[in-house]
């Protein structure tokens, strides 16, 4: 019961405000540790030289780009099934971060590809499916921008992300299949060599740092979304002022 207390935007607002700085501090600390391990402590790669170090930012961003969409889909399910407003607000708060991570993954991948493969963009399965993931984020954000009524936007976004999340595995496998058909796997990223323990530790720290960053930013953003919609209730200690109460919109 005490858990559900915070499923209301008005009670979640102060909690998010308290938690966000801690996640931000954690993100900063883990980021410093990860970058030190990755850029200073980790040895130079035998084959790729210093260039490989871009992977310490590339891997976390690529993971987070995908993972955040999954989290959004879970929130979307909650929003549609239980009609919780906070879930939809969290989706909205997470979307820009997910899009930024996906774009960063593409950009760092292009930089790395340019220096190792000699091309900015190879239409390989991961490139292509990450690009489509970015389009899915753009679609969600465009829909959110277009709808003015927040309740409609919440539900429409939840439905869209759910449909998208069902489609993502299909997209991934179709793109993978398409890729193997069209170019006989010239570049095998799938068979990545075993990482040195120190490199693995650096990647792990960076993944955690990105994770904490995403949580911190999402909490800050969700506070702004709550403030935008519930300003009157927040100022009135969680109670809807009489002048705002209408029989139509009871919740």
């Amino acid at each position, binding site marked *: 019961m005490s858990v559900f207390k915070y499923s209301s935007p008005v009670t979640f607002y102060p909690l998010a405000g308290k938690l966000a700085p801690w996640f931000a501090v954690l993100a900063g600390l883990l980021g410093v540790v990860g970058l030190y391990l990755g850029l200073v402590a980790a040895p130079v790669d035998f084959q790729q030289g210093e260039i490989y170090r871009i992977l310490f930012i590339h891997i976390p961003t690529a993971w987070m780009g995908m993972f955040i969409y999954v989290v959004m889909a879970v929130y979307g399910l909650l929003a549609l099934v239980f009609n919780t407003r906070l879930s939809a607000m969290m989706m909205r708060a997470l979307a820009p971060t997910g899009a930024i991570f996906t774009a960063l993954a593409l950009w760092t991948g292009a930089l790395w590809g340019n220096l190792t493969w000699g091309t900015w963009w190879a239409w390989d399965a991961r490139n292509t499916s990450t690009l489509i993931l970015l389009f899915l984020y753009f679609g969600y954000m465009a829909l959110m921008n*277009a709808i003015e009524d927040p309740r*409609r936007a919440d539900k429409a976004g939840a439905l869209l992300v759910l449909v998208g999340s069902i489609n993502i595995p*299909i*997209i991934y*496998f*179709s793109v993978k299949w*398409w890729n193997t*058909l069209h170019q006989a796997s010239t570049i095998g990223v799938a068979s990545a060599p075993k990482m040195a323990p120190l490199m693995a530790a650096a990647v792990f720290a960076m993944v955690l740092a990105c994770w904490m960053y995403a949580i911190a930013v999402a909490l800050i953003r969700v506070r702004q979304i709550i403030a935008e919609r519930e300003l009157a209730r927040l100022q009135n200690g969680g109670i809807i002022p009489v002048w705002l109460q209408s029989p139509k919109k009871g919740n």
Partner: protein
Amino acid sequence: MATVITTPTPSFSEVNGFKLGLQRDWLLAVRQKGEIAQMLVFFLIVASFFPLAIGAETAILTRVGAGVVWVSGLLAVLLTMPRLFATDYADGTLEQLICSGFPLASVCAGKIVAHWLSSGFLLTLVSPLVGLQFGLKPPELGVLALSLLLGTPLLSMLGAIASALTLGLRGGAMLTALLVLPLFVPVLIFGAGCVSAAQSDLPYTAQLYLLGAGLLIGAVGTPFAAAAAVKISLD
């Protein structure tokens, strides 16, 4: 023996809802033949522009032919999306359909089928003509038409969800395209892929089966999702 009197009570069954959606939209499509003709002409024009842009060497054209037919067909179907819900929304019919008492999902299913019959199905019939322009051989033309037959209904299904979500929004048509195009990726890949497989004498039935599987999953799920989207937009 008491005679059983059966009064003709109106039945709001799923089947009748489906019939309502199908008949209404099909009738509208048939009465506005101009729109259908415009879509087909658009399809032919876009497809004919590719040789002008990339050169008319037969080797290139046969390689890109299936992809061109698929992409131009996709764009043509995209332009017909407003027919699904937007026009009914604009004149208030959609609200009447929701209040009618028929299960909305079955009405949506009928509308989707009517939309496909008046868009994707017709493109399928015309597609061999464009395929010929791109130098595809008769068996490949058959595969192309078959892939469109299985794939284009999915365009109508996914398009129904997206166009229902964007009802009444400013820039709705562009937004619908933005929402729906990423979701079309597997259909495009398998659809165009099975023709290129046939061209290189590879087995192509797997792609057709996958399209068929997608079609079945879509047929089960999308009418409900479209109905939910309509309700969200008109709430």
